[in-house]
């Protein structure tokens, strides 16, 4: 036990004496969350709005008012004719044009039907889809209000926007916090563990350790414990920041969130061990964990792109990516407010991944250098 303690202490010296590494390890999650919360966001604010409103009645004014007060739009242009639309888009400043039909309010009241056309610049499809979604939602909410107020109760269509169910303000942070958690934990556990073992191989100290009476399991434990500890710190930082700074609440059970995270940390640590048992050089360990782990986490875990729309091959690959299951589980708990029974599948998948990976990497960790 004393051997192990001395060895774990040594690992902490390695981490903390390398100021840059320490800074990166502790600040990375903070920086990423702030970036994600404030800079990298799918939220589109202050889109310039051009409006053609031949009716100028109670309904159109109310809708324009609602659009403007939402914070997503600034009305910058009132058009005199629809022909001007192309012109304003060519100028490049306008993000969305709203064209009301004539006698809008009258039509709405009497026939229950009124046309409004939304035009966006399809050259940037993501932006276009986002702003039209905002506008449709806002218009739909006006319709709802109208419906409630009306005595006759003419049935209107209800907003079909399912995406906004758990994220009514379309806050980017809701989507990114689970993703960032997955990425950071994977990065710290897998990358740092594999690099630190590879470093010992490169320096030749691993050879000396293997010749020494030190038990191989102690070597592994001493590598794993410090990064486990760091991951817990990072997990805490991420959760505190997301709740208090980004205002993403933990809607579900904190307990199960932590269980899920611990499980994911184990999987990542085991992956790190597995990588380190295959490589001899730090650089290779870095590349493998960087490319082979981070890329799939970013692209296939559902963090940035919805997995459902991918070709089946990529969907299949995404199934074996631990981060995907972790992120799914975190979304369920943090955002949808679900708890234990609904994350059973995620827990089981991650649990079996952990068992298999730990078994394989323990077996592969060579006691003898061949």
């Amino acid at each position: 036990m004393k051997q192990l303690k001395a060895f774990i202490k040594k690992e902490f010296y390695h981490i903390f004496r390398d100021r840059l590494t320490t800074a990166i390890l502790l600040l990375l999650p903070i920086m990423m969350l702030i970036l994600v919360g404030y800079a990298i966001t799918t939220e589109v604010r202050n889109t310039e709005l051009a409006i053609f409103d031949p009716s100028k009645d109670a309904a159109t004014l109310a809708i324009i008012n609602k659009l403007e007060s939402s914070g997503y739009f600034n009305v910058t242009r009132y058009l005199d004719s629809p022909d001007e639309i192309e012109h304003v888009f060519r100028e490049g400043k306008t993000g969305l044009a709203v064209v009301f039909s004539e006698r809008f309010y009258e039509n709405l009241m009497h026939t229950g039907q009124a046309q409004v056309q939304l035009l966006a610049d399809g050259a940037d499809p993501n932006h276009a889809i986002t702003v039209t979604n905002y506008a449709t939602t806002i218009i739909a909410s006006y319709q709802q209000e109208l419906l409630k107020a009306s005595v006759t109760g003419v049935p209107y269509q209800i907003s079909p926007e399912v995406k906004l169910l758990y994220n009514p303000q379309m806050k980017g942070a809701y989507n990114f916090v689970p993703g960032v958690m997955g990425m950071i934990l994977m990065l710290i556990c897998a990358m740092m563990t594999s690099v630190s073992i590879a470093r010992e191989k490169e320096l030749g100290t691993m050879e000396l350790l293997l010749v020494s009476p030190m038990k191989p399991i102690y070597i592994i434990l001493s590598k794993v414990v410090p990064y486990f500890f760091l991951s817990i710190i990072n997990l805490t930082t991420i959760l505190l920041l997301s709740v208090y700074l980004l205002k993403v609440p933990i809607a579900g059970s904190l307990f199960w969130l932590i269980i899920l995270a611990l499980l994911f940390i184990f999987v990542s640590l085991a992956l790190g061990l597995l990588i380190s048992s295959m490589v001899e050089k730090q650089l290779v360990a870095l590349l493998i964990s960087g490319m082979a782990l981070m890329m799939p986490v970013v692209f296939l875990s559902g963090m940035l792109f919805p997995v459902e729309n991918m070709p089946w091959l990529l969907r299949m690959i995404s199934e074996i990516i631990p981060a995907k299951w972790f992120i799914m589980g975190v979304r369920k708990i943090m955002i949808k407010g679900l708890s234990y029974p609904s994350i059973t599948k995620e827990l089981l998948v991650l649990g079996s991944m952990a068992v298999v990976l730990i078994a394989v990497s323990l077996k592969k960790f060579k006691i003898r250098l061949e």
Partner: protein
Amino acid sequence: MNVITAENLTKSFGSFTAVDHISFEVAQGEIFGFLGANGAGKTTAIRMLCGLSKPTSGKGYVAGFDIRKQPEQIKANIGYLSQKFALYEDLKVWENIRLYAGIYGIPEKKIGDRIDEILTRLGFENEKEVLVKALPLGWKQKLSFSVAIVHEPRIVFLDEPTSGVDPATRRQFWELIYDAADRGITVFVTTHYMDEAEYCNRVSIMVDGKIQALDTPKNLKKQFEAGNMDEVFHQLARKARLNGD
């Protein structure tokens, strides 16, 4: 008394035989030079003796233990140093000694004394708190040798410990080796510097996986009618090449 015995020890990697039926014995307290060109199979042999690599065939005993069946007991009785220094650069001098003392199972109470003893022997009293990366190369090497024998093992294996070091530092290093041998530690050292062979009690010369000669430097020079070990080595190497062709 013999502390190392090898009987027809062989290691093959696929069709390539790195170590080809080598047999020798090393006595307690001896400085045994294990010579050969790069790629002659020295490192492979040393790894088998340390329990780092399983022999393909043959037998080996180190400190009375079977290298196939009792690698753990062997590990407790040997020290090992490769051409890499095996020190942690971001740990202080005393922390490195402390760490290895712990790894080799020196009782907690004795570790403090051992650290002071080593620092005094090396003349490093003022460098106790210095990070290893700040030490000059020759110092690192001396420190890593002292760390390898921190537990006063019965045998220490040195795998090309002086490669890439200047002659003056090499001399100092050999003084440490003599010092250890005087304390009864058997030294098994590989090198490709033939002048260092003169410092050994006995040397074996390995060519292409086989031991071609094994005797004291004096006898070898007489046998090959050579002025120094370098000539002995070249004669052997030439012979092997002729046989090979």
